[in-house]
C-alpha cells in the first residue's frame, strides 16, 4: 500500500522520484557482489581473538608460549604489542572517541571490562588452527565485582570501572571516582512555575534494555602490512576515511601509509563506524608478513561490538486541560558501556524534539558499566527518549480524552520552534506528516475485534550533513563515471547517481557510480546520520554543475563562440542562433575538441535536515500468553524529496521493523554471572518475516531548504516512533500500560495478570 509521495513542492523532475534498478543490484542478486569475506589473497592467513570470559577482571598474566609453538600458528599478539596511547579525542564524523579507550577496547591491557573483551589474538594457517591456538593461551584473571544496570552503576558503592574517571558537569570535573562520565543539562523557561500552573501533570518512569543493530554480516576485515611499510585494509565499514584515521592513530603511523578499501557492507546501522578487527589484523600482519583475514562469530558480534544503550528515564509533562503543553522535565540515564561516550547527548536533544515546549529541562547521564562500549544505532539515543516521551503524550491524550493525533497537532514542532538544546527549526514537515496520518486509510479504518488496539507516535532525528567529496569523468559514449567515498549500505549509489543524472539531464543508468578507496577520492565522512543521500548527493549535484560549466566551454569551442553565449537547458547545450547539442552528442565529440572533462566537488555542510515521522500501529494481544501480534502498521515520514521512492519506503519499513523488534522482543539477557545468555540470532530474537504484516508507508515531501532538490535524510527517523506506538496500541488492546522494553510475552502477561 505504497502510493506516490505527497508533495509540497511545484518542482518537476525527470529522474528524481523515479524508481530505476539500482546500479549494484545485479551483482547482489547473483551473489557476485564482493563483501570483505569474499576477498581472498594468495598467502592469506586467518586471525582469531581470545576474549575475556569475565565481565570485570584484572589480567594478572598472559602466557602465549604454547599457542606460539603450535604448528600452523604464525603470530600471536596481546595488549603489550600495542602502542601506548594517551587520552586524545578524535572526531569520527558521527560522534567522537577517546583514542586511548578505543585502543583498549580493541585489546585490553590490564583489565577486562566486559565479557567478550579482546585479550589476545592469533594468526594461523586456517581458522581451525587459530581456534586451537586460542585454547592454548593461558590467562590468569582476578575477577572483580561487576555492574550491568545503569542505575546500579550510578550508586556510590558501585564497582568502579575506571579509577581515574570523574564526572564532567558543565565543563567542571567531579572530585571522586565514579562511573558517571558526563552529566548534561539543557534548560529553557521556568519549568517549576509552569508545572505548578498546569491543569494536568503526568510523571512516569521508563526502562529500556540493551539492543543490538543486528546487521546480518558480522564484522570482518583483511589487513596487509606490506614490506614497504604501507598498510592496506579491506573491511566492512560505514566510513573508510574514519577507519583510516582510527587505524593510523591507534597504530601511530602516518595517515598516508594506510589505504582503506571499503568492500560491500552487509548492514551497519551505526555499528560499523568504530574499528574492532582492523588494527588487530594489521598488527598480526606486521608480525607474520602476510595478509590476515578476521571474521567475527555471531556471539562475538553481540558480546563485543557496540549495541545501543539500555536506559532509565523519568519524564514529567504538564498541560492545560485543552491539551496545550506548558512544561516538560526529563531525566535520562543511558549506558555508555565499558568506556565513556555513549549516546546520551542526542537522547537529551531529541526527547522533546517533536513539540513546542516553552518551559523544558533535561538532565542526562552517561554511565559506564560492564557491557560492551555502546555505539550508534539508527537515530542513536532518540528511540529510548521517544519511547518515554511519546508514551507520556499518549497517556495525556487518554487522560484528557483528546485524540492523540489532535494532541500532537496542537503541540507540533514547526518552523520557528526552538528545541530545548537551542536550535530553531527551519521549514520542517511534522504537521504535514500528522495531517497525512489523519487522512490515511489506516487511521480512518475502524479497528474491530477483541484484544485489539491502535497506537500512534511521532519521532524525530536531526539527520546530519558533514563532509563529502566526489569526482566525475565524462565518457565519450555520453555516460558519466562517478567516484564517491560513501560506502553503499542501502542503495545510495543510486540515490546519489540520480542527483547527478538530474543535474546533467541524463538517465540514471547513464551515471556509473563507484565506491572507491581512500587513495582515490577526497575525504568523505561516514555513511551514517542519514547524511549520504543528502550530503554526498549534494556533492554529486555540485559536480554536475562543474561538468555543465566545462561542457559549455567545450560547446563554445565547437561552435567557435563565446562561452557566455552557451547555456545548459535540461540535458541540451544551446548556443547562439539556436544551435543545439545534446549531452551525449557533445560527449561523443569531446575527444576531438580538447582535454578530457573531469569534475570534482567537495562539500561541508554544518546543518541538520530535520526528519520527522509519524507511525500508526494496530496490535492484537493474546491475554493468555502476553504475545503481541502486529496486525497493521503504517510509517509516515517527511523525506523532503524522495529521490528513489522505493528505497525511501524500504528505509521506512526496515526502521519500523527494527523498532518493532526493540518494542516486543529484543534484549540482552544476562545471567547472574554477568554473561550474556542469548548471544545468538536464535535467542536474540529479531523479527522474522513470519512475525510481521506488510508495512505500509506514506512519503511526505516538504522540501529541505538546505538542499537544491529539497532532500532530507530518511534512514534513521523510522526507528524512533515504533516502541511508543506499539506501547499505546497494547494499552488500547488490553489496558496494560507498559513502561519497560521489551514488552515481551512474560512481561506483558504479568502486567495483564495484575490488572484483574
Amino acid at each position, binding site marked *: 500500500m505504497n502510493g506516490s509521495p505527497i508533495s509540497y513542492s511545484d518542482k518537476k523532475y525527470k529522474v528524481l522520484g523515479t524508481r530505476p534498478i539500482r546500479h549494484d543490484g545485479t551483482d547482489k542478486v*547473483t551473489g557476485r557482489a564482493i563483501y570483505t569475506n569474499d576477498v581472498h589473497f594468495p598467502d592469506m592467513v586467518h586471525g582469531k581473538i581470545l576474549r575475556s570470559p569475565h565481565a570485570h577482571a584484572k589480567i594478572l598474566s598472559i602466557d602465549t608460549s604454547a599457542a606460539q609453538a603450535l604448528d600452523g600458528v604464525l603470530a600471536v599478539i596481546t595488549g603489550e604489542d600495542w602502542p601506548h596511547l594517551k587520552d586524545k579525542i578524535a572526531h569520527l564524523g558521527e560522534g567522537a572517541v577517546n583514542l586511548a579507550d578505543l585502543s583498549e577496547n580493541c585489546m585490553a591491557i590490564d583489565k577486562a571490562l566486559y565479557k567478550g573483551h579482546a585479550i589476545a589474538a592469533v594468526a594461523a594457517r586456517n581458522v581451525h588452527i587459530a581456534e586451537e591456538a586460542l585454547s592454548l593461551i593461558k590467562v590468569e584473571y582476578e575477577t572483580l565485582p561487576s555492574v550491568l544496570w545503569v542505575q546500579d552503576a550510578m550508586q556510590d558503592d558501585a564497582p568502579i570501572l575506571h579509577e581515574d574517571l570523574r564526572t564532567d558537569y558543565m565543563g567542571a570535573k567531579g572530585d571522586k571516582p565514579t562511573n558517571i562520565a558526563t552529566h548534561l543539562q539543557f534548560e529553557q523557561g521556568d519549568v517549576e512555575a509552569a508545572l505548578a500552573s498546569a491543569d494536568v501533570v503526568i510523571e512516569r518512569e521508563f526502562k529500556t534494555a540493551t539492543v543490538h543493530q543486528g546487521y546480518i554480516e558480522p564484522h570482518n576485515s583483511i589487513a596487509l602490512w606490506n614490506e614497504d611499510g604501507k598498510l592496506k585494509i579491506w573491511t566492512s565499514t560505514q566510513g573508510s576515511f574514519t577507519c583510516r584515521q582510527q587505524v593510523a592513530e591507534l597504530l601511530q603511523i602516518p595517515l598516508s601509509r594506510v589505504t582503506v578499501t571499503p568492500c560491500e557492507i552487509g548492514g551497519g546501522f551505526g555499528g560499523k563506524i568504530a574499528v574492532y578487527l582492523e588494527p588487530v589484523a594489521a598488527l598480526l600482519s606486521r608480525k607474520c608478513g602476510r595478509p590476515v583475514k578476521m571474521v567475527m562469530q555471531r556471539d562475538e558480534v553481540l558480546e563485543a561490538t557496540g549495541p545501543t544503550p539500555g536506559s532509565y528515564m523519568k519524564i514529567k509533562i504538564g498541560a492545560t486541560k485543552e491539551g496545550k503543553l506548558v512544561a516538560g522535565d526529563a531525566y535520562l540515564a543511558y549506558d555508555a558501556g565499558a568506556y565513556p561516550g555513549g549516546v546520551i547527548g542526542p537522547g537529551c536533544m531529541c526527547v522533546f524534539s517533536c513539540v513546542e515546549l516553552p518551559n523544558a529541562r533535561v538532565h542526562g547521564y552517561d554511565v559506564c558499566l560492564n557491557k560492551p562500549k555502546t555505539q550508534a544505532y539508527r537515530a542513536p539515543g532518540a528511540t529510548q527518549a521517544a519511547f518515554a516521551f511519546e508514551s507520556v503524550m499518549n497517556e495525556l491524550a487518554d487522560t484528557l480524552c483528546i485524540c492523540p493525533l489532535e494532541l500532537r497537532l496542537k503541540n507540533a514542532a514547526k518552523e520557528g520552534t526552538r528545541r530545548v538544546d537551542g536550535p530553531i527549526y527551519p521549514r520542517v514537515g511534522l504537521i504535514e506528516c500528522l495531517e497525512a496520518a489523519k487522512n490515511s486509510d489506516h487511521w480512518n479504518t475502524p479497528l474491530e475485534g477483541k484484544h485489539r488496539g491502535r497506537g500512534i507516535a511521532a519521532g524525530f532525528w536531526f539527520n546530519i550533513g558533514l563532509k563529502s567529496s566526489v569526482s566525475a569523468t565524462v565518457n565519450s559514449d555520453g555516460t558519466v563515471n562517478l567516484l564517491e567515498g560513501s560506502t553503499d549500505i542501502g542503495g545510495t549509489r543510486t540515490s546519489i547517481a540520480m542527483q547527478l543524472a538530474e543535474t546533467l539531464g541524463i538517465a540514471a*543508468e547513464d551515471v556509473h557510480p563507484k565506491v572507491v578507496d581512500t587513495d582515490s577520492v577526497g575525504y568523505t565522512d561516514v555513511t551514517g546520520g542519514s547524511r549520504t543521500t543528502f550530503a554526498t548527493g549534494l556533492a554529486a549535484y555540485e559536480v554536475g554543475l562543474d561538468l555543465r560549466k566545462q561542457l559549455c566551454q567545450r560547446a563554445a569551442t565547437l561552435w567557435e563562440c563565446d562561452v557566455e553565449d552557451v547555456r545548459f537547458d535540461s540535458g541540451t547545450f544551446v548556443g547562439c542562433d539556436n544551435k543545439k547539442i545534446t549531452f551525449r552528442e557533445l560527449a561523443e565529440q569531446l575527444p576531438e575538441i580538447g582535454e578530457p572533462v573531469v569534475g570534482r566537488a567537495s562539500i561541508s555542510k554544518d546543518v541538520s535536515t530535520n526528519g520527522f515521522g509519524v507511525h500508526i500501529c494496530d496490535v492484537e494481544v493474546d491475554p493468555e500468553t502476553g504475545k503481541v501480534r502486529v496486525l497493521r502498521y503504517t510509517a509516515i515520514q517527511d523525506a523532503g524529496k524522495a529521490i528513489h521512492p522505493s528505497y525511501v519506503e524500504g528505509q521506512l519499513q526496515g526502521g519500523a521493523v527494527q523498532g518493532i523488534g526493540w518494542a516486543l522482543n529484543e534484549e540482552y539477557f544476562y545471567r547472574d554471572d554477568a554473561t550474556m545468555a542469548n548471544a545468538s540470532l536464535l535467542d536474540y530474537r529479531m523479527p522474522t518475516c513470519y512475525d510481521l504484516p506488510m508495512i505500509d508507508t506514506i512519503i511526505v515531501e516538504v522540501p529541505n531548504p538546505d538542499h537544491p532538490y529539497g532532500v532530507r535524510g530518511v534512514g534513521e527517523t523510522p526507528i524512533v516512533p515504533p516502541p511508543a506506538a506499539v506501547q499505546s496500541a497494547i494499552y488500547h488492546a488490553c489496558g496494560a500500560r507498559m513502561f519497560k522494553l521489551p514488552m515481551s510475552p512474560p512481561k506483558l502477561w504479568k502486567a495483564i495478570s495484575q490488572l484483574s
Partner: protein
Amino acid sequence: MPGKAPAKMAISTTINGQNYDFLCEPRQSLLEVLRDSLQLTGAKEGCNNGNCGACTVLLDGEPVNSCIVLAVEVQGRELTTIEGIANRGELHPIQQCFLEGAALQCGICTPGFIVAAKALLDKKPNPSEEEIRFALAGNLCRCTGYDKIVRSVQAASERIQAGSTPKQNPQPNQTNQQQAQQQQ
C-alpha cells in the same frame, strides 16, 4: 589433539549441474568448503550457526543452511547455490523481481532469500502470503522490513506462472532511459 589436522576426505558432488571433486576435513562445514575451497562465495556467512539463512543452498532441492551441514555430507548429492540460479546470462524471475521490487538494501541476505524462495516456488508455484512468510522465516533480513521481499516473491510467482521469459534488461530501466532521452 591440537596441531594435528584431521585427515582429509575425498568428496564427489554435483554443484549447479557440474561435477566437483574436492578434499576436505571432516570438521569443515559445507559453507566453508564452498566459499574457501571452491570459491563459490555467493552463499554468505551471517551467523555460522544456522540461525540467519544467509548461506542457504539447495541440497537435493531442499533448502539447507550450509553452515550447519558438514561438507562430507554432500558426497554423491546434488547442490544448487546462488551461482546456479540464473540461467546462462538470464536472471531467474525471482532475481529479476528482487531487482525491480527493490527487495534488497545491503544485499548480504539476498542470495539466501533468493535460494529459499526458489525452493518454495519450485514446489509451490502459487503460494499464499502466509506460505511465503513461513517458507522465508528462516532467513533474517535486518534492512528491508521484509515487505518488499515478500512482494517480490509474489511478483515472481505471478511471472513464473504466466510463463513469461525474464528479460535481461529490466523494463523500468528502459522506460527511464527512454523518457530521459525523449525529454532531452
